[in-house]
């Protein structure tokens, strides 16, 4: 199939970017979306142009690196990530808009690549359980009811791609933060740091310039890992309880 692409090109963080028309010719429908871009890039390179920079790595939907907004939707019509989108979802002659995830907290660094370090700093603020290597007791000494383990797993499946932020009109990261807070709050191991975790992760989230949730549910709709929006409700509750306890000085 032949396609008309409108691709965001931007030299670096400080330059202006713009949409550039590029044609993609003879694309096999069995190719993935990123393989389509590989073919386009090979052609650009042969012509002596610079290839389109886009982030990707595992190409099996789990590393969370790929981060394209396709026709205005993070990960486009893929059921999961951009790398798991196949060209059979498009038709010959289609025009496709390809842009980076758009959010104030995710500055573009080149073409379709964005800087997601804000996510890192949120995790560093509290997305962990303190357990030094070598300090653990026997794994079966901590019983975890299956339903809690399943809920924790459901939230822990977040791949940290940032589609939730890219899709949210407020540029909110609450699905991402809620996923980690829920994962650890569901487990007995996560209890000792439960309160301080949610407070410091939310504080960092606000500092990074992410917006707040106002119930658009766009995040849930685009999430490749199917993180449910209920983690945001959980985040709000965890935050409210922790905030109240913190105010009156109880742990």
């Amino acid at each position, binding site marked *: 199939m032949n396609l008309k692409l409108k691709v965001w090109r931007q030299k670096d963080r400080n330059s202006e970017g713009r949409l550039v028309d590029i044609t993609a010719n003879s694309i096999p429908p069995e190719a993935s979306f990123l*393989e389509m871009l590989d073919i386009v890039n090979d052609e650009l390179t042969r012509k002596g142009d610079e290839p389109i920079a886009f982030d990707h790595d595992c190409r099996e939907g789990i590393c969370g690196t790929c981060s394209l907004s396709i026709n205005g939707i993070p990960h486009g019509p893929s059921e999961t990530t951009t790398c798991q989108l196949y060209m059979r979802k498009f038709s010959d002659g289609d025009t496709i808009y390809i842009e980076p995830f758009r959010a104030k907290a995710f500055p573009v660094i*080149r073409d379709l690549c964005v800087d997601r370090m804000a996510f890192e700093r949120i995790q560093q603020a509290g997305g962990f359980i303190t357990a030094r290597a070598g300090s653990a007791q026997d794994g079966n000494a901590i019983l975890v009811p299956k339903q809690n383990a399943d809920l924790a797993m459901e939230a822990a*499946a977040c791949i940290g791609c940032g589609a939730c932020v890219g899709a949210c009109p407020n540029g909110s990261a609450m699905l991402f933060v809620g996923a980690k807070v829920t994962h650890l709050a569901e487990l007995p191991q996560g209890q000792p740091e439960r309160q301080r975790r949610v407070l410091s992760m939310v504080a960092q989230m606000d500092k990074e310039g992410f917006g707040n949730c106002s119930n658009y549910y766009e995040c849930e709709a685009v999430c490749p890992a199917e993180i449910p929006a209920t983690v945001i409700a959980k985040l709000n509750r965890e935050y409210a309880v922790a905030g109240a306890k913190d105010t009156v000085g109880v742990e």
Partner: protein
Amino acid sequence: MIGRIDSKVPSGPLDSKWENHKFESKLINPSNKRKYSVLVVGSGLAGASAAASLAELGYQVKCFCYQDSPRRAHSIAAQGGINGAKNYQGDGDSVHRLFYDTVKGGDFRAREANVHRLAEVSVDIIDQCVALGVPFAREYGGLLANRSFGGTQVSRTFYARGQTGQQLLLGAYSSLNRMIGAGSVQMFPRTEMLELVIVDGHAKGIVVRDMVTGAISSHSADAVVLATGGYGNVYYLSTNAKGCNVTAPWRAYKKGALFANPCFTQIHPTCIPVSGSYQSKLTLMSESLRNDGRCWAPKKKSDTRKPGDIPEDERDYYLERMYPAFGNLAPRDIASRAAKMQCDDGRGVGPGGFGVYLDFRDAILRYGRGTIGGANLSETEAHARGTEKVKALYGNLFDMYHQITAESGYEQPMRVYPAVHYTMGGLWVDYNLMSNVPGLFVLGEANFSDHGANRLGASALMQGLADGYFILPATIGNYLATVAPDKRPKADHAEFRAAEEAVNARTQKFLSIKGKKTVDEFHRELGLLMWDLCGMARTEKSLTRALSRIPTLREEFWTNVNVPGSSDSLNVSLEKAGRVADFLEFGELMCLDALERRESCGGHFREEFQYTEKDPEVQSGKVCAGDVKRDDENFCHVACWEYGGTTLKPLRHTEPLIYEVVHPAVRSYR
């Protein structure tokens, strides 16, 4: 030239070597630890767990990764699980059995003491991961659940859906984050190591490129740890992430580190088959699927009927036929070769006949009928109920299969074919995980030590975390205690400046060639060549051919590659050019190693060395015709390659493998 190769395996009985070694290892007192700086390159299971654990002990740590976050390292993609000799199922497992299974699985080409230590530490890993909040699958009573994996007859694999690697990596990543937040680890994402710096014979630092700004900089330290993964992408198509590369170990090799057993690569039996020349990577279908899926090929050659139309008695469940004791859970090397044999025999399925079926029909019906009141269900009803159960067990894998092939694995069998997956070879390390270059440590897939000639499923995660959480933190002191922390060279030392200049010169060379072919075109060409001539089956002839063709391709690369753009910005072509240039050298060493190892073992199958119908082992039913034939008399050793400079052939040294407890035997899974 390198003298005798000393593995530094401690003396004493096998099961007390590690305990004794830890006691005899040198300690560094807490106030001195903070004076030492350690660089960790790579942030996967091994790198992240090592960086976090060293920082917890009090060392100053810098950690580097090429991805935009340590959480994206390719450990994340491991699906099935992690082994741990907990014997929670009470099914006869033990440290000794895990040790034995791993040595046998590796076809008796691993270092015995290392493997025993790995099995010992495996139980601590599970505890550590649980403590960090890894949401392992649980039973209703709240206890940890297990499943089986290839090459074993017990259930010792812990798992989190089909995303175990992801959850284990996120656990290690969370520890790493804690230490970054505490200021004990400095993290450098989007940063690629391009040179190792050696001062007075000791590894003292690295030169890196900031992949966003293009800035080249030096980092000096008291020790360097490489945890940079495997080199499967030398084949271009593999289950590795696109960015996986051999550059860091290769740079170390060219500075004197020994490369061990580079020809030992693992071909995974169940991957989604190649669909076209544009294809950029291969996707694995987890080995855990073989707990329930049955591998088969039509008995008739070139059978083009739909799988559902092929009656039961015209199907060849070849693994169950050939290896009845282990059936579909035969180890990877054996299952891969068996699949290839069916296809070579003209009985492959799908485009080009490069595929076999992985069929869940029977499992779905079995699960459906196993539910309450299931015995009386019609086949359609049982199928519907059974599908739900299979979805709960492997849903994400079936979804992935569906997205890629547009076929449903619930309704028809999956088509699978072997693909390059893991590399057992790597930089040589001693018992302390230190290479022959003092101060250079190598962990995880990047080293060679634990898996011999074939790795068992669910053991890569175990080894990465063993090395990072438990082994390096205990052994690094042995080296650091011998160097004074204030004697560390500054990052503007002449050796660092020379390394930076070499990196800059190479970059300018890439940009100045302005040839006609893209980097990917060269990479694809190399990959095809390696797959055809040094892939699942190798011969003296094919390897000799590869050895004459690779240098020609390399020469063409250096005169005809086109790397557009500049060095001072994010330049994907430039990054790839550096990696492919190294693969073009490394591929040659792989073929040389495969040529010199004149035996078959594990994943290394030399067609000249296989069992035939005439062998007594086949006649007595121990092995099948076509199984690999080892030569213990001449090749029970690690091949360790020393760089010979630009003009000399690499030198082959050997470390004899001495088995004190296990007696290498014919590896039978029948």
